[in-house]
Every structure is written in structure tokens, then in C-alpha cells.
């Protein structure tokens, strides 16, 4: 690894048990090291297998800072190739997804297979006699490691390191739960992909997603609006009153947020309990769609296992550094850092195979309500991320505080920590992980 302009000792000095230094959000040099040591090393979500279901299918995404094409080869293997011709550097694929026999560069027609191999170049006679088309340096650059867990395909830019299974750790169960919710035991990505950009550091997203104190303040306007709404909940509604439910649900009292469990690991992964307690998204709903869905699960798994699957009431499950999974509502969010002060959030939902259509419609609506640029909920979070970025351009004070709940975190052993809501335990675990990636293995 190249020498960094910021030494390990300095990096260590930027994180304390009760806070972090503002440079973590503002310093482009820190961002460069994060891309190298965190995003260059962790397992990052690439695609769901349903997005590259058939041989020849491809799907474009971003892995750390690279434009990559995820492909399904004729041999059935899923690979991830960097979208850059090895001849003159042109982007070879401009479609977001599709099915193809291979990739031909538009510039001089170097043509690559689905596994990245260079298959043909024009005007061979003009190349030197020792030009070897099978030389690996002419193949599209492959993401060194690609592994799949329950249909979720991850890639790592590091050629060696911990396995995907070890990286996911006990939080694997979240992906299990999402897939197990499908009566046919299979899910597929559908309903489109929402993309939102904000002018703030990538770390704000995960700090906020398990912060159970902010909704009372940040989301006050949507909660108050929903509370004042005089709708007739028995009247049929195009959205089953789900938009109202999603606005209203952040209206927990401080005591209710306090009772919510927060759990996390030294890996930096954390999760929070569910808080949709009424309305169409509440667990255990008895409306006809929910009942039909439950009966299909019971037919497949029996009562006991169905209760276990549907009883898993969690909201945001955060994988460090950049994935948020909500199994209950079939959502996955990917946080893509673009620059020290610019981030894209990519969100998609899944269809549970064998579930009634109405369950998928709820997932689509969930995604629209929460992640559309016009969201009446996330808009206020994003506003706060941008205000933090803007505020942190001021040099003083140097430190941001995350001491809330510090005295009440409980170490359960084996790297597991617990707390009740209203604690900044997730922040502390995230920055513990940050420090290990940034400073320990340097």
C-alpha cells in the first residue's frame, strides 16, 4: 500500500470513545484513505442474482469508485468487470442493464467476452507479431473476489481477506430473513431503483439510520402533519393509508424510542428494533392481503417457522460501511461515496416470490415514500446531512460528540454490544470499525 500523507498515529488521534474529529467529514485526504482501506477492502454489495438471472445478463453498478459491469457468463458464473477498455480506456458499456454476447468497444472494436477475455481485435496484421490477445493484461479488469450469499452478490477489491460469510457475521440472519419471507423461498429485485444524491459525507447516512433520537426532531413536521390528518381509516385508499402510516410512525415518544433495542458488533454492523406499530405495515396485521400472505407461508413452512420468520421485527440493519437492509419491508440501501462531501444513496426493493401482489405493492410504496427525491421523510434527513456538511466547513470546534448512552452500553461478549434506544452505541461501533480499517492494518 502506498505511503499515505496522513500517518497512522494521526489517524488514531481522530477518533475518541466519545467523539470524532471534524476532518473525518471534510478532509479529502482522509476520504482517499477511506476509499483505499475501507471501500478497497470490505465486501460491498454488487447486485442481486435476479438482476443477472440468465447467461449473458449484465447489470452496471458502482463498486467503491469504480464503474463495474456485473455479468452472468455462459458458464453460469457471476463476475464483475471494470467498465474500461484495456486499449485506449473508453467506457465499453453505456447501458444500465441488458443481455449481450459480449462487449465491443465503440472506439476500435476490441471485443470482450462476458468473463472479460479479449476475444478479437481488428486489423491484427498491424499489431506486433508478439501481440498476444490472450495476455491477461488485455482482459477487462476483474473485481478480484466475487461471492454470493443467499442470492446477494458482493465484491471485494482486495485479492485476499476475510470471507464474505465472516464479513457479514451474525448479521447474515438479516439476509436469511429477507429471503425466508418469500413463500417460494426466492426473491427478485423489481419495481425500479431509487437514486438520491446529497451534498454531504457518506458516513452521515449510517450514523443517522440507527439514531433513534433524531426522528422526534427531524421528522416532527411529517409526524405533526399526519397527526392532524382527519382521514377515515376505514375508507378504501389507493395506498391503504400507508403514506400516512410511514409519516406517523416516527412519532414515538422518547419513552417508546428508549424501549427500542439497539444491537451491534465490533465489526461496525448494527441494527435497531422495528417501530411500525400500527397501520398497514405493522407486524401481525389481519387485513386480507396480510392474511393471505401468512397462509401461504404457513402452507410452506408450518405455523412455528412462519411465526419465527414474521416475528423478526427489525427496522434498519446496517452493514458497515455502506449497506442498510430492511428485511421486513424488502428494502436494501447502498451508500455510495462520490467525494468527501458528496454521496449517492441507491435503494431497491424485492418481490417475494409466491406472496400476493399486494405485498409487493407495499414494498414499492415503501420505497417511493421513503426514498423518492420528493419523500416527505428522507428529505428532512438529507437536509440535515447537508446542513452538517455545511456547518463542518467552519473549523471550530474540532470535535463532534457521540457520547450519548456511553455509560449504559452493555458488552455481551464475542464482540456483541447492546443498548436501549436513545444511545449513540451505533456511532461508537461504526467509528471503532473505521479506526481498525484505517489504522490497524495500514
Amino acid at each position, binding site marked *: 500500500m502506498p505511503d499515505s500523507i496522513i500517518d497512522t498515529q494521526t489517524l488514531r488521534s481522530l477518533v475518541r470513545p466519545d467523539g470524532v474529529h471534524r476532518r473525518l467529514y471534510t478532509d479529502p485526504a482522509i476520504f482517499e484513505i477511506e476509499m483505499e482501506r475501507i471501500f478497497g477492502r470490505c465486501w460491498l454489495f454488487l447486485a442481486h442474482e435476479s438482476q443477472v438471472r440468465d447467461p449473458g445478463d449484465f447489470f452496471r453498478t458502482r463498486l467503491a469508485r469504480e464503474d463495474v459491469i456485473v455479468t452472468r457468463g455462459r458458464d453460469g458464473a457471476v463476475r464483475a468487470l471494470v467498465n474500461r477498455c484495456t486499449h485506449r480506456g473508453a467506457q465499453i458499456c453505456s447501458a444500465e442493464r441488458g443481455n449481450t454476447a459480449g462487449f465491443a468497444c465503440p472506439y476500435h472494436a476490441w471485443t470482450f467476452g462476458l468473463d472479460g477475455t479479449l476475444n478479437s481485435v481488428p486489423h491484427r496484421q498491424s499489431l506486433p507479431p508478439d501481440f498476444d490477445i490472450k495476455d491477461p493484461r488485455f482482459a477487462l479488469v476483474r473485481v478480484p473476489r466475487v461471492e454470493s450469499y443467499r442470492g446477494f452478490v458482493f465484491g471485494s477489491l482486495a485479492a485476499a481477506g476475510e470471507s464474505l460469510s465472516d464479513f457479514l457475521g451474525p448479521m447474515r440472519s438479516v439476509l436469511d430473513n429477507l429471503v425466508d419471507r418469500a413463500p417460494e423461498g426466492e426473491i427478485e429485485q423489481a419495481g425500479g431503483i431509487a437514486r438520491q444524491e446529497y*451534498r454531504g459525507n457518506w458516513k452521515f447516512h449510517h450514523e443517522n439510520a440507527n439514531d433513534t433520537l433524531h426522528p422526534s426532531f427531524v421528522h416532527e413536521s411529517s409526524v405533526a402533519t399526519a397527526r392532524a390528518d382527519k382521514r377515515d381509516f376505514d375508507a378504501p385508499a389507493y395506498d391503504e393509508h400507508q403514506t*400516512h402510516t410511514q409519516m406517523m410512525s416516527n412519532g414515538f415518544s422518547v419513552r417508546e424510542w428508549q424501549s427500542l433495542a439497539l444491537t451491534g458488533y465490533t465489526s461496525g454492523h448494527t441494527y435497531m428494533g422495528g417501530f411500525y406499530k400500527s397501520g398497514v405495515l405493522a407486524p401481525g396485521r389481519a387485513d386480507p392481503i396480510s392474511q393471505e400472505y401468512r397462509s401461504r407461508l404457513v402452507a410452506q413452512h408450518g405455523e412455528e417457522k412462519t411465526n419465527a420468520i414474521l416475528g423478526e421485527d427489525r427496522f434498519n440493519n446496517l452493514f458497515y460501511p455502506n449497506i442498510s437492509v430492511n428485511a421486513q419491508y424488502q428494502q436494501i440501501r447502498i451508500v455510495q461515496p462520490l467525494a468527501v462531501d458528496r454521496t449517492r444513496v441507491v435503494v431497491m426493493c424485492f418481490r417475494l416470490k409466491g406472496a400476493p401482489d399486494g405485498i409487493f405493492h407495499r414494498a414499492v410504496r415503501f420505497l417511493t415514500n421513503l426514498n423518492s427525491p*420528493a419523500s416527505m421523510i428522507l428529505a428532512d434527513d438529507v437536509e440535515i446531512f447537508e446542513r452538517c456538511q455545511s456547518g463542518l466547513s467552519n473549523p471550530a470546534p474540532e470535535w463532534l460528540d457521540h457520547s450519548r448512552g456511553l455509560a449504559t452500553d452493555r458488552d455481551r461478549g464475542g464482540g456483541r454490544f447492546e443498548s436501549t434506544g436513545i444511545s449513540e452505541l451505533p456511532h461508537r461501533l461504526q467509528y471503532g470499525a473505521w479506526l481498525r480499517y484505517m489504522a490497524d492494518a495500514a
Partner: protein
Amino acid sequence: MSDLKAEAEAFLIAEARLLDAGRFDEWLALFAEDGFYWVPAMPGQSDPFNHISIFYEDKSVLAMRVRRLGHPRAYAALPMTRTAHMIGSITAEPGAAPGIDLACRSTVMMADFRAGAGEGRADRRLWAGQQSHRLRRTPEGLKIVLKRVDLIDCDAAHGVLSVPI
């Protein structure tokens, strides 16, 4: 200009002025009780239930949106977005479905800007696309049964859009 087109143009201009003036209550009142506001998230989107949208709201949800914009702590609307609409290429024809008296299509461009949003955040943006209005004649004037805006970049990454287009 045909009477129908003149009527459509007058309606569309009046609607755009209400939005630009931030008179969202009056804008909301332009919708029929069964009216919908739809901004798809996919070019040519035909289905608001199996695919996400940017907005897909009936009048009751739109009413919440308008009320929220007036809340003193709706942070994404503080400062409130200023907008300027330009409506052009208007065509109008008689409605072809029951309850629709007038169907018009137009091109919309909306520039937006948030004054005082702070360093690096005060850029002006431009939203553009085709819009279609299905209108019903009522004793209170024309009412919107469906307003649909197809943005040219509906499937791209966006920042927050807290006001309707």
C-alpha cells in the same frame, strides 16, 4: 387559437403561477376530490403500483404534503424553494374518457433555487419534461383529475425535491 386550447392555456398558466407563488392551498383546490398527481420514475411508466414513482399521490396525500410545507420545522423547505415555471407547446382536445372533459399536453420547465441554503448548496436547478392534464368541468371551474409530469431525467439520481412541479 381554438377555444379549447385557449381554455387549457389559461388553466395551465394559472396553475403554474400558483405554484411559483407558493400558494399551495389554492393549487391543491384545483384538484378534483378523486384527483391524482403523478410524476413517474421511469420513462413511459404505465403502472404506479409495481414500479416506484417520484410522486404518486391522491388528493388526501397531496393535502398532507401541502400542510407539511407550511409547518415551521419542515427543514427541507427551510428556506422554501423558489420556482419559475415555463409552460409551452400546449395542445388540447376533448376528453376521451367519462369524467374527463378536457385533455391537454404541454412541455414544462421549472427552475428552482433555495436562497440562503449555505455554502455549496445554493445552486439553481432545472427540471424539464412533458406534462399531461386530464381536466373536468365543474361549477367551480376546471378541476384536475390527473396531472402527470414525465421528467426527462425521471430515472436519474436527484437531490431533494420538496415542492410539486
